[in-house]
Each structure stands twice: as structure tokens, then as C-alpha cells.
């Protein structure tokens, strides 16, 4: 077994659905200085990227949108996998490695995991907020191990996952796709032939949905409350149900990934989350 195979198997055994390897040289072609793997780990050569289903597929079957993000399981375990791998590489192969990246400043990440996933061949950008779509998994939850170990990279995929043929047909008929139709405030773009021609994504609006109960909302609530001269109104802002839910969510560190509406009708994601019953008549216990 090659080191690449061993490292990938290790990630899969620990709960990742797919693992890809990107070279730092490929990432650095696109990432600006200050946001590159070797800005985080001196001498970084490779980034191992772990991808997983966001949640059990049943989370998409709930009529209560909050169920979806409460069930996001891979986001809770993904960084443990990358940390474990970093320790494996250090102890077995003797190369400096990291299993976590520094926190974002505002909404700017220290390293784009989307870019790492793209360069590791785990998927390609989609019209839906340039989210990486994977043919088998749909939307991905990601983590990354940065290592000084030179590994054979998988490299980016040659064929894009988005747009799905059904979206191309819809575009040809209606000049819209399911994601653009769902969230026009946040997303726009155009398909030409069977490729994305251009796209625009407003991260600010997306953050009010995907990080609905998160840091930005708390900062804004505090600003509004502190500027509110009427004590009755101030009480309503701070003691009301929205602020209560906000604090509860932040305390539980569950502040990201709170929206997936642009991908609810996405055919790539719909195919990925489709389950087939394997045992029709289970024997009674």
C-alpha cells in the first residue's frame, strides 16, 4: 500500500466519505498570499482533504429547517479526522503536519477549503454560491490536513459536476436553474452550452441564512440593543426568542451551515441523497 493509499484509508475508516489530496503548488496558483497552506505550515507540500455527507439524508426530509443543521454530523467529526491524520503522518513518516487551520477573520477564511477540495479532485464549483458539488455526495462538508510530506496529488477534476443535464435543459427552457430560482437575492449566473459561463455570489446575504444564528447576528443584535433608547424595546430585543435562540446556538458552537435551500432542488444533491430501501420486509425481532 502506498503512503497515499494508507492515508486515504485512514480517513475513510475514521468517517470521511471521500478523501482527496491536493498539492500546495496547485492551491497557490489561485489562493492569494496570506491565505495559502504554506502561510499556515512552513514548508507545506500537500493538503489532504476529507469530504463527508453533511447529515443523515433524513435531515432533508424534515419540514422543520432547523432539523437539518441540528443533524449535521460530519461537521462535528471532520476536524478530528484531519488531526488524527496529522499525528499519523508525524509519527509514522516524520513530516510536520497540522489538522486544523487558523480561524476566519470576519467571513474571510484563513484557507479556502472549497479551493483545497477542488484541487484535490473532490468536486467542482457550482452555480449555488460556488459551493463544491461532488457527483456521489452532492454538497460536501470539508476538513483538511496540511503536511510537509510530499504526496502524489489527485489534481482537479476535468469535467465539471455542475450544471447537471436537467439544469441545462431547464436553463434552455426558462433561463433559470433550481438554485438560481430559489435564492435570486444571493445568486446569479448564466449557462452557455453545458457549462457555467459566469456566476455571482453575494456572501453577505448568504451569511444571514447559512449563519442565521451566528456571530454576525449577535453583533448586530448587540449594536441595535445598545443604540436603542427605549428600555421596553431594548428588553424585547435582548430577551426575545430570536436572541435566545441566537445565544443558545452560539453556545453550542453550531453557527455555520444553517441553510441548504439553494441545493434542496439541485438534481446532483437530490441524486446523492436518494435512498433505496434494502430490506423491504425486515424479520420481526
Amino acid at each position, binding site marked *: 500500500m502506498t503512503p497515499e493509499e494508507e492515508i486515504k484509508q485512514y480517513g475513510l475508516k475514521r468517517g470521511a466519505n471521500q478523501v482527496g489530496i491536493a498539492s500546495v503548488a496547485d492551491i497557490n496558483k489561485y489562493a492569494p498570499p496570506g491565505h495559502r497552506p504554506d502561510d499556515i505550515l512552513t514548508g507545506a507540500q500537500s493538503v489532504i482533504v476529507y469530504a463527508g455527507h453533511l447529515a443523515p439524508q433524513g435531515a432533508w426530509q424534515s419540514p422543520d*429547517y432547523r432539523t437539518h443543521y441540528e443533524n449535521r454530523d460530519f461537521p462535528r467529526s471532520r476536524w478530528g479526522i484531519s488531526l488524527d491524520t496529522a499525528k499519523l503522518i508525524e509519527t509514522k513518516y516524520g513530516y510536520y503536519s497540522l489538522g486544523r487551520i487558523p480561524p476566519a477573520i470576519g467571513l474571510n477564511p484563513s484557507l479556502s477549503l472549497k479551493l483545497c477540495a477542488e484541487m484535490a479532485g473532490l468536486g467542482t464549483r457550482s452555480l449555488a454560491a460556488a459551493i463544491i458539488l461532488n457527483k456521489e455526495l452532492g454538497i460536501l462538508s470539508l476538513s483538511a490536513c496540511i503536511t510537509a510530506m510530499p504526496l502524489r496529488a489527485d489534481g482537479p477534476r476535468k469535467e465539471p459536476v455542475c450544471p447537471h443535464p436537467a439544469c441545462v435543459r431547464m436553463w434552455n427552457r426558462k433561463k433559470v436553474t433550481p438554485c438560481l430560482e430559489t435564492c435570486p437575492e444571493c445568486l446569479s449566473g448564466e449557462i452557455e452550452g453545458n457549462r457555467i459561463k459566469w456566476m455571482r455570489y453575494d456572501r453577505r446575504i448568504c451569511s444571514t441564512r447559512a449563519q442565521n444564528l451566528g456571530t454576525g447576528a449577535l453583533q448586530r443584535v448587540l449594536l*441595535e440593543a445598545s443604540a436603542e433608547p427605549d428600555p421596553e424595546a431594548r428588553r424585547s430585543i435582548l430577551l426575545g426568542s430570536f436572541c435566545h435562540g441566537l445565544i443558545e446556538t452560539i453556545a453550542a458552537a453550531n453557527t455555520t451551515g444553517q441553510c441548504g435551500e439553494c441545493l434542496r432542488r439541485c438534481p446532483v444533491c437530490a441524486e446523492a441523497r436518494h435512498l433505496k430501501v434494502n430490506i423491504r420486509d425486515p424479520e420481526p425481532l
Partner: protein
Amino acid sequence: MAKYVAPEVYNKYKNLVLEMSPAIQYYDGLVAQRETSCLSDREIADRLGIDVEDVTEIRCIAEVESLPADAWLKSANWKREKVRNFFK
């Protein structure tokens, strides 16, 4: 205590910083267009000729402040409605 950005500096640069930052992202095909947007704080600071720490503060404040105060509350209602319509 956080770095303080003078109001005149903030007001002068907030729209420019937001436009040049990844707050609003443009892609040509699958590749982010980084001539005028999707720039890092350092790249914005170099182009505007201001301090990178000022750019970081302006971006962080403006990205939250540029939206209406009730945007987050409305987003929760928006999601509730989207899911309800999906299961109708």
C-alpha cells in the same frame, strides 16, 4: 480592545472595500475573478494605499452593517417558508 477605525476612514472606504473583498464574488466560468473583487485584505490595502489592519476592520464591520438590522430574522422566516413550500 479592538483596533479603532476613524469614522471618516470607515465611511470613505467601506463601499470600496466591500466591492473589492470576497463579500460579493464574481466567477468567469469556475474561476474567481480577482482583478476587482475577491481580493485579500492585503491586496485591497495595497490598491487603496491604506493600512491592512484598517482594511480588515472596515471589511468586518461593513459586511455586517451593510445589511438591514432585521435581515437575520427575515432569513429565518424565509427558510421556514421555503421548506414549507417544498413539502406542500
